[in-house]
């Protein structure tokens, strides 16, 4: 292994080399096209070839050589270059996970969806007393912890949101009913015990059965709402 390049030279000198070896110009073309920082045109390649080489024939042969390989010789704007085979484009991705903390707004919204589901965006805003940005909702959808579950039978037919199974597993809840209720929240000190009498915390339920005031989602609703969270592996499919 001392020297790969030396090895190569030695190999070439050995008599064992196939007399039917590929024409040298194919090696030259290969090397030139591989190392070039940009596609090369025929004239530029021809200049580097030994005399008497039919560059067209050589390029055609090289193209055929690589046709079935993972790398193809392609012609772009009349210039030649090696490119990853089209069907392998999916390989040219690198995946990484980055840990992201949810913003406070997103956590608040998530909490309201969890307790008040099925709930529309307008209802969430009403509870929070703040307009929610579209971005916050998108981030929440990206987490996979919430999902649009239907449409409210009111003017405008707004989407209703609920939590998913991923939500339960993220927060280690066996069921949504395990979310603490009013008395428990008071007991842990999270809620002030002197809250006015009318104050209540709903008993949350993520029962997927639509409520009476809900219509089912329509085709396209899911796509719309879940657009950002497409997994690449499933995306490259074919």
């Amino acid at each position, binding site marked *: 292994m001392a*020297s790969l390049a030396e090895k190569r030279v030695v190999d070439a000198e050995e008599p064992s080399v196939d007399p039917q070896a590929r024409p040298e110009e194919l090696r030259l073309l290969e090397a030139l096209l591989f190392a070039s920082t940009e596609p090369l045109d025929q004239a530029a390649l021809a200049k580097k070839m030994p005399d008497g080489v039919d560059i067209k024939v050589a390029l055609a042969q090289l193209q055929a050589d690589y046709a079935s390989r993972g790398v193809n010789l392609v012609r772009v704007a009349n210039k030649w*270059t090696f490119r990853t085979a089209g069907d392998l484009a999916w390989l040219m*991705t690198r995946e*990484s996970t*980055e840990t992201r903390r949810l913003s406070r707004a997103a956590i608040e919204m998530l909490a309201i969806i969890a307790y008040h589901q099925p709930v529309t965006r307008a209802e969430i805003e009403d509870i929070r*007393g703040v307009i929610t940005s579209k971005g916050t909702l998108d981030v929440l959808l990206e987490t996979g912890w919430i999902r649009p579950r239907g449409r409210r039978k009111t003017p405008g037919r707004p989407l209703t949101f609920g939590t998913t199974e991923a939500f339960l597993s993220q927060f280690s809840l066996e069921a949504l009913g395990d979310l603490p209720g009013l008395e428990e929240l008071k007991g*842990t000190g999270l*809620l002030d015990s002197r809250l006015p009498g009318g104050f209540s915390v709903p008993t949350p339920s993520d029962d997927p059965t639509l409520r009476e005031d809900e219509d089912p989602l329509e085709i396209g609703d899911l796509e719309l709402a879940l657009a950002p969270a497409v997994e690449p592996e499933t995306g490259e499919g074919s």
Partner: protein
Amino acid sequence: MSAEILSFETGRPAELAADDEPSLVVDVEGYEGPLDLLLALARQQKVDLHKISILALADQYLVFIEAARKIRLELAADYLVMAAWLAYLKSRLLLPEPATPDGPSAEEMATALANRLRRLEAIREAANRLMNRPQLQRDIFPRGDPESIAEIKHPKFTATLFDLLTAYAAQRQQRVLATVHLARRTVWSLSEARASLERLVGMAEDWSRLDEYLLNYVVDPSQKATVFASSFAAALELVREGEVELHQKEAFAPLYFRKRPPQASDAITAPDLPVE
């Protein structure tokens, strides 16, 4: 061994001293220190460094240094240190070893020097071979136009149940406490007060206590202030217009009022005061 060295040594210094060896005399700058110079001189012995005569080498070096000094070349101190050391080594090599040697023997010192030279030569040879290897971007090339790898980041969100509950409780609570039902402030306007007073004045022929009247009138104690203020202001207005008379015994004492009698102008000096 020393005999061999001596025999080998003969003739070399004279040869070196000759002026027709320009590379030796002038080109001190070309050497990278005394060891480099020694190695160059050693090569002139045209023998393997294993068989080099250190004694001869010392002589060569000393001759070189002498020659350099004759033409007043500035020599770096380490060349001179090496010269001094070699002169010492030479004398040690020529003299018989003392019976009880302290420190390394002359032979050992010579061997050590030879080894240093061999080591320098070996590393130079290695450097040569290294630099003659096919080098990246000089002889061999990587892909000139690598294709970009698309980076797909999968976000992993973090949030705890505690975050969730805290957020929920905090915002629900905040909403409740923040919802101040701003009860419409019931203010008794001046015109309201005046209208009421005017109606009242018709009834009160004799001195009446304003605050008594007020207390009767006001149901909600929180309205007391506004009713009081507005009525007082309205009463003053009625006094100015001559409709009503006001009387107060001293500061903060109860205020009395009555409808102004027809010839009230003379009564002002001696009003018949109401009985407490």
